[in-house]
């Protein structure tokens, strides 16, 4: 079971991992700017790639884990799974915010537009909004058991929804092609760029792990305090 000591230890380890990840992120940027060649057609604008793509990876990792945990919760009914899902969803919303801000900043100079209703962009936006709804729903339910069940239901439904949104936008676009040509298969990345990108993937995964551990511990400590208060009140 969860104890205060254990939760505090998880929070401390999570904090350590997060600090390491932030330092490593600075390292990624030093490498991206100084030791990775400038992309020929996009110039310096392409440097945001090392932030944007790993953020996308971590966002989908976070939401994917939250969805799978929702399914697991409905099966096993373990409170720790619910806490883990909550932490993953919240960190996912933060990562999606990074993704959805770096995307337009990159898109404007390269595509010539801040936003395009492409399948991936639209799915990400809906996923982001759905998980905001997920977190708001959690905030609106006071009973812990009910909160866990309700949010797990939304998590599972969300997991099933994403392919449908993707398909909808895909069908929509094939009938109305847009002037902006999106490359379906990206260019083979030169080795140096690939190393920087992969390192950044690692850093964002670390960031995810560190933040989720802290958020999980915070949720556990909050529940423990509520339990103590309920006990004291009799």
């Amino acid at each position, binding site marked *: 079971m969860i104890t205060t000591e254990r939760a505090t230890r998880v929070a401390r380890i999570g904090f350590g991992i997060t600090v390491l990840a932030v330092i490593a992120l600075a390292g990624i940027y030093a490498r991206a700017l100084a030791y990775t060649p400038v992309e020929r057609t996009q110039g310096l604008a392409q440097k945001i790639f090392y932030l944007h793509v790993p953020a996308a990876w971590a966002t989908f990792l976070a939401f994917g884990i939250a969805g799978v945990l929702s399914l697991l919760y409905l099966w096993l009914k373990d409170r720790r799974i619910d806490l883990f899902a909550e932490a993953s969803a919240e960190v996912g919303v933060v990562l999606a915010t990074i993704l959805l801000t770096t995307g337009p900043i990159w898109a404007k100079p390269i595509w010539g537009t801040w936003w395009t209703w492409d399948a991936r962009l639209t799915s990400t936006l809906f996923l982001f909004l759905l998980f905001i709804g997920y977190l708001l*729903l959690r905030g609106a339910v006071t009973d812990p058991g009910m909160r866990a069940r309700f949010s797990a239901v939304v998590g599972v439904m969300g997991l099933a929804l994403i392919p449908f*949104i993707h398909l909808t936008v895909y*069908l929509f676009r094939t009938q109305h092609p847009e002037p902006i040509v999106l490359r379906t298969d990206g260019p083979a990345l030169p080795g140096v760029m690939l190393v920087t990108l992969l390192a950044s993937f690692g850093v964002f995964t670390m960031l995810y792990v560190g933040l989720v551990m802290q958020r999980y511990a915070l949720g556990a400590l909050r529940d423990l305090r509520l339990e103590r208060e309920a006990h004291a009140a009799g």
Partner: protein
Amino acid sequence: MTGVVRAALWIAAKDLRIEWRTRTAFVSALAFAVLVLAVIFFSRDPTAVSAGAIAPGALWVTFVFATMLGLRRAFDVERERMAFDGLLLSPIPREAIFWGKWLGNLLFVASIEAVSLPVAFLFYDVAGWTRLPVIAGVILLATVAFVAVGTLVSAMTARTRHGELLLVLLLLPFLFPPAVAGVQITARLLEGRPLSEVMGWLKLIAAFDIVFLTLASLLFPATLDE
């Protein structure tokens, strides 16, 4: 199995009977639908865009809004005097509650659509009256999905704080695929194109119906208190 069907029919009949006595939700959802149609009519440059061009979008946006407004009713009536506990305590299978609520909601939303569809055709001066039965069929197909997800979500939001806000926020992403498909199909059909041209969209709605009707019915018991 017959026990589930009978209990579901009983719940749907009960809900519709309650609604029939006052007709509050029906009249307000219908008046709201007409209002939305009127507002969207003016949301264009009349010298550049014809009313017919935005009619399919206006129609489906109206349905989506009216559905969300109407869905609250099914579980709101159960909150008064702990009626829902009575429903849970009654000797009927749990899944019958979902199917009963779903059926009641489906008939309720379909009746609003049945009135607002011809109204929209009149308001927007749509020429394709002969296509009306086919379009009505597509609307019914999409409404099955609207109501399946809506029944599940409203079962939860009826028992949370800020329920009416959360219902809209959580439901709208799920209405997006069938509604977009509905707009595309309606637009093609009104242009006189054959049904074969929109098979992709029809399959999308059908797949959505199957997946979410199954998921919603399976997940519904998890929203009930143990």
